[in-house]
């Protein structure tokens, strides 16, 4: 069978905390802890699709149902102000604005009248977390349905109030209108502050994209002014009365345990509280400087077993496969690769690798914790407010309803803020200090004690006929993950398999997940096959492709880029790559310049075409696509975590290069707006085409094929 492979193919749900264990086992109330958690064993559940993209030491998933009462999702005040409640969080992806647009559209109110309450576990309905590009395809329709049901209820109320037939009434800009009698009444006056007593029906017609008035427009960021004036309070900006500042003593290496320590000097410092609990040692003090001095004065000895280094990383991954071939990791097989290769005119066998990289959110992990009457409130930047609430409840052996997590709009995350370490540490310090405590991780702590995008090895075999048809495709991914591992191309003989391995470092989610690695290997190898049979890389892809949506973005990107008119010159090359991931269709063309004497690689220009169904906010989407391309440059060319024996060697911005102004090419974006299709998320997928397009362009420019991400950390070696 060929051509029927559902794309994206997920062979096994992503596991994103391969190597994590609960952040802390606090010693206090040990018996209660054992009673609650059965010895603190980590239980990792396998969940289907989106849920499985979640990371986190403890998966808190109790089959929570989304509430069906409209009042759980939105409230209309007497003054007409609309308050919307969602457990999703804003960290730069612009959903505070796009979700407000969704509600405004269905409720027929001005977006300015909407206030979004987000990521507050006391106020918003349960939510698994903000990851996997799920907000637009799932939360947006949920809120739209709630808004639509609310409007239904308002029409009923107005019809009753006026004693008219509701079918004669219409709604617009926050009021119900009776055109016949020229009467109108504002929503707030109808409700008089009462909740909307309506449940969300299973089926409720939503405004089709072709009739959108607020959705589909480039509404500017709703609270943009707060950011350009400094008024917005990020988690790291929160200040409470009487608050102390925390600092944690970090182990000398990963997996280290405390063998001896001396805190006498710190304890003698005025106003400093020293907290020791198991392997956790930290302080709380009236200022950051005092806290730093106190921790610096602690003498501690740690012991740990030898650990692998980045030099041996890929060998380590290949030698430490665990659990492949099981039910969860059964390979995707079509036809016979062996027979397909036997029939091929040309064959290619290659290995690709990707390094660990760090999310490096500009706002590092931060938390402010306050205990009051046995209840814990934490302000922190996390993608999983309810997950972190669960982590806190477990760490302190208290019921979940004693914990409130609030997430102020956060200084980015990119998949790197699923976990609650900093929140737990702040809360532990606050508990002993008897005062609220703020803890902001240093950049070095963020680089070291968070988690990384998984490293991986990908082994690929391909066979192709001289007419350009691919006959066989064998793809093995070790460790980096199963996201985007399938091929969208129409290949009769396939074997595609993900092999989980041990990981030397703590690893977790990252923007685009493993799709970046898998697309890099696949689209590089596509180029290698095209080159073997001397066919234009775009033509080669289209020849082997049946998916019309993917074809459309390839053609749109090529047109914008003027692919057909490209002219090679010494040191200049062009590349193309694309794929399907999380409901989005992406194609990216890149032009690079390579200076063979200095080895310098520069990306000159990029064109990305993206299709994610009906576009909700065109400018917001463009911003995401531009940003994804820029972020992708780092992992493509120079970002890599170096480590040795349990230590990170480049845990500083001066040692870990991230993309800067000078790295940025001209970026052209083409939005393929499909108003006939449901909207998919767009925060991640636009990133996956950049690395392979650049790699293919480098090959085109220099004849050098680079198969390891990052491709040119020290430039292109001659």
């Amino acid at each position, binding site marked *: 069978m060929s051509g029927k492979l559902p794309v994206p193919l997920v062979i096994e749900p992503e596991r994103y905390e391969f190597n994590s264990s609960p952040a802390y086992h606090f010693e206090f109330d040990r018996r209660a802890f054992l009673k609650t958690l059965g010895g603190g064993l980590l239980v990792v559940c396998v969940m289907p699709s989106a849920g499985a993209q979640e990371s986190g030491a403890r998966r808190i998933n109790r089959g929570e149902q989304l509430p069906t009462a409209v009042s759980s999702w939105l409230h209309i005040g007497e003054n007409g102000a609309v308050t919307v409640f969602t457990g999703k969080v804003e960290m730069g992806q612009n959903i505070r604005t796009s979700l407000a647009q969704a509600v405004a559209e269905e409720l027929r109110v001005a977006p300015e009248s909407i206030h979004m309450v987000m990521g507050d576990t006391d106020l918003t309905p349960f939510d698994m977390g903000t990851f996997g590009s799920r907000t637009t395809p799932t939360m947006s329709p949920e809120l739209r349905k709630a808004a639509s049901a609310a409007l239904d209820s308002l029409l009923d109320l107005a019809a009753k109030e006026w004693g008219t037939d509701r079918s004669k009434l219409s709604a617009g800009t926050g009021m119900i209108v009776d055109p016949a009698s020229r009467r109108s009444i504002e929503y707030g006056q109808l409700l008089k502050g009462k909740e909307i007593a309506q449940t969300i029906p299973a089926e409720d017609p939503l405004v089709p994209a072709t009739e959108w008035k607020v959705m589909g427009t480039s509404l500017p960021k709703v609270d943009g002014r707060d950011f350009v004036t400094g008024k917005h309070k990020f988690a790291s900006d929160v200040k409470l009365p009487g608050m102390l500042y925390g600092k944690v003593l970090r182990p000398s290496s990963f997996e280290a345990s405390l063998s001896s320590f001396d805190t006498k000097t710190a304890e003698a410092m005025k106003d400093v509280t020293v907290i020791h609990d198991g392997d956790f040692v930290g302080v709380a003090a009236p200022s950051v400087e005092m806290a730093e001095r106190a921790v610096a004065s602690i003498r501690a000895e740690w012991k740990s077993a030898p650990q692998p280094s980045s030099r041996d990383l890929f060998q380590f991954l290949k030698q430490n496969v665990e659990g492949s071939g099981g039910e969860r990791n059964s390979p995707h097989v079509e036809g016979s690769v062996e027979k397909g290769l036997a029939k091929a005119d040309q064959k290619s066998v290659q290995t690709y690798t990707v390094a660990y990289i760090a999310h490096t959110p500009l706002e590092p992990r931060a938390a402010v914790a306050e205990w009051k009457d046995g209840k814990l409130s934490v302000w922190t930047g996390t993608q999983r407010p309810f997950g972190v609430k669960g982590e806190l409840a477990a760490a302190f052996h208290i019921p979940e309803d004693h914990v409130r997590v609030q997430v102020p*709009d956060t200084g980015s995350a990119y998949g790197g803020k699923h976990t609650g370490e900093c929140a737990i540490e702040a809360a532990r310090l606050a508990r002993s200090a008897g005062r609220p405590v703020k803890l902001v991780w240093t950049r070095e702590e963020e680089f070291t004690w968070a988690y990384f995008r998984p490293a991986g090895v990908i082994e690929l075999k391909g066979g192709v006929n001289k007419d350009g048809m691919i006959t066989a495709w064998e793809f093995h991914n070790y460790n980096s993950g199963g996201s985007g591992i399938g091929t969208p191309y129409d290949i009769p003989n396939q074997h595609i398999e993900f092999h989980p391995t041990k990981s030397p470092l703590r690893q977790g989610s990252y923007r685009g997940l493993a799709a970046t690695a898998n697309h890099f290997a696949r689209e590089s190898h596509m180029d290698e096959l095209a080159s073997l049979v001397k066919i234009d890389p775009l033509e080669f892809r289209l020849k082997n492709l049946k998916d019309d949506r993917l074809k459309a973005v390839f053609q749109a990107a090529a047109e914008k880029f003027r692919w057909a008119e490209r002219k090679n010159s010494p040191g200049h090359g062009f590349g193309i790559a694309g794929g399907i991931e999380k409901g989005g269709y992406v194609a990216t063309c890149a032009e690079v310049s390579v200076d063979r004497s200095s080895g310098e690689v520069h990306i000159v220009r990029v064109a990305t075409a993206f299709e994610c169904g009906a576009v909700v906010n065109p400018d917001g989407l463009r911003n995401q696509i531009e940003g994804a391309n820029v972020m992708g440059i780092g992992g493509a060319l120079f970002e890599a975590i170096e480590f040795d024996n349990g230590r990170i060697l480049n845990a500083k911005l001066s040692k870990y290069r991230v993309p800067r*102004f000078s790295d940025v090419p001209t970026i052209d974006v083409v939005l393929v707006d499909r108003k006939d299709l449901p909207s998919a998320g767009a925060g991640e997928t636009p990133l996956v085409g950049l690395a392979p397009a650049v790699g293919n362009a480098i090959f085109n420019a220099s004849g050098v094929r680079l198969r390891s991400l990052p491709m040119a950390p020290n430039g292109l070696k001659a």
Partner: protein
Amino acid sequence: MPRITELQINETRHSVDVDADTSLLSVLRDHLDLTGSKYGCGEGQCGACTVLLDGLPRRSCITKVGAAASKKITTLEGLATDGHLHPVQQAFLDVGAFQCAYCTSGMIMTAAAFLKANLNPSAPEVAQFMEGNVCRCGTYSRIVAAVLQAAKAMKEVAR
């Protein structure tokens, strides 16, 4: 250790009582609750903490408060006048030159300092001046566009 007891910030005198070697960023944020300036790296590599000292952009995370005591300090909170946004702030809004906006304060302060000296910059000049500021969301092209737009607006006012 000498103590610093007074700072001139955003045209207002602020009383403090801190060691002269305390970081200016820490004094602004923790002692005075002026949280517009951000911590990003602590080693002057990302620019999120940028403030103006006598009009010049400085990394407040690696500037000791003692070195700022005799200078006029301007932070993002002091950039707007009488509720009117500075042209750079307005341009960032108009262009949509941010995503998470954690870098925005440092970007705006750096750009404001740059435009004081040059109202006719080219895009490469803007990018070069701002090379030390990191935006992890990757909105660099928009930031350049916003700075150019602000330059244009400021030139028109000056005319």
